[in-house]
């Protein structure tokens, strides 16, 4: 019932879904731990002409720096930085294919690093799917939606930025706290050991000398 009429509707639905998925900003936002002397690579397929952006930040570990490089499908290095704490890189893809970006901690021998990266491909589609090619002007409600959407995007971005900064500062503060505790305990122990050692050493000098030159009382 209605099967003949369902085909064009379902074809349209398929087309709409494919269009929505193709235009959606694909990408990945991950936080992972990079062990010392290790390198981790990620790959993403990018269409020709699409713009992609990579933001990364080191959250904890060592001197908070990491090497990063991005390669296009032909193997050319389009971005390379060493020992960066955070950076942002955007590029318009000239070649269609699989782009590779790698984080390297090979210069470090004993510090694990926690790295956050955000890789976005493509532009954000407008909040209303056919905003670009509409004949009539947007109604007030639709333009209010658009404004709110833009504002929320800014809020989310700055929220992520503050969250990462706070995580980094808190890691440093916890580090400082534990270092102060260890140092105070260690120095107390060292103080006592050194002071008793000094006294015993001095005593030992004078006791031996005493036994040599003086004649024992009889």
């Amino acid at each position, binding site marked *: 019932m209605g099967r003949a009429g369902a085909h064009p509707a379902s074809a349209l639905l398929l087309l709409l879904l494919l269009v929505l998925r193709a235009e959606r900003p694909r990408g990945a936002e991950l936080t992972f731990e990079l062990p010392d002397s290790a390198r981790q690579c990620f790959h993403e397929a990018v269409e020709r002409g699409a713009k992609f952006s990579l933001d990364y930040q080191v959250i904890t570990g060592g001197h908070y720096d990491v090497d990063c490089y991005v390669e296009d499908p032909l193997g050319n290095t389009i971005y390379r930085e060493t020992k960066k704490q955070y950076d942002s890189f955007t590029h318009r893809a000239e070649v269609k294919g699989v782009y590779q970006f790698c984080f390297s901690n090979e210069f470090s021998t004993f510090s694990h690093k926690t790295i956050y990266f955000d890789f976005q491909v493509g532009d954000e589609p407008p909040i209303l799917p056919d905003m670009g090619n509409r004949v009539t002007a947007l109604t007030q409600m639709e333009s209010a*939606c658009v404004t709110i959407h833009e504002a*929320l995007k800014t809020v989310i971005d700055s929220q992520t930025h503050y969250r990462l900064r706070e995580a980094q500062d808190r890691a440093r503060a916890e580090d400082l706290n534990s270092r102060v505790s260890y140092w105070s305990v260690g120095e107390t122990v060292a103080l006592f050991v050194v002071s008793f050692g000094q006294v015993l050493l001095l005593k030992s000098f004078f006791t031996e000398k005493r036994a040599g030159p003086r004649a024992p009382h009889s």
Partner: protein
Amino acid sequence: MQTLTFVFSFYFSLSTAFYFHVGEREEKCIIEDIPSDTLITGTFKIQQWDIHRQDFLESAPGLGMFVTVRTYNDEVLLSTLYGPQGRFYFTSHSPGEHIICLESNSTRLVSFGGSKLRIHLEIRVGQHDLDAAIAQAKDKVNEVSFKLEHLIEQIEQIVKEQNYQRDREENFRMISEDTNGNVLWWAFAQTLIFISIGIFQMKYLKDFFIAKKLV
């Protein structure tokens, strides 16, 4: 027919997703710092390296993926074995770092050079399943009201993150004040210890020298 169409388009988007390589028995972990009551959806697919063809197979026959989700205090939220392709969900009960670990259940004892896996992964924070409903909206009012629902959801997520941020900042401030108090207390204690040890040393040595008739 409608369901088949929807499933087909989902598969299409996953095959070109973001991926990375791991060794066959290696465990890869991802950290997600999220507030409480947040739904996380993860979609993954494994491809196995074929030695003879020197390329990746379309799928990984016979391999499964062991997915473990732990909180910061090692409380296990999810620990399940999936097939080579699947989707997992979990909702966080407490705010904090959640560690999602993926490991294949390969039983190969020796992984010789060249055996690796390609893992396609997509992790989503918060609910995002309104897009399909929007595509099927019949009229204008419905479409805009779905979009408003999407915006309201985004705002709720932002408010949750902000509350979480407030808690974390308080924790951070407590740690800093703790450190400050510790340093101050330690400075006083150290001065006292120095002075008392100095007095003790002088007294002891003076008594010692007087006893030895050197002074």
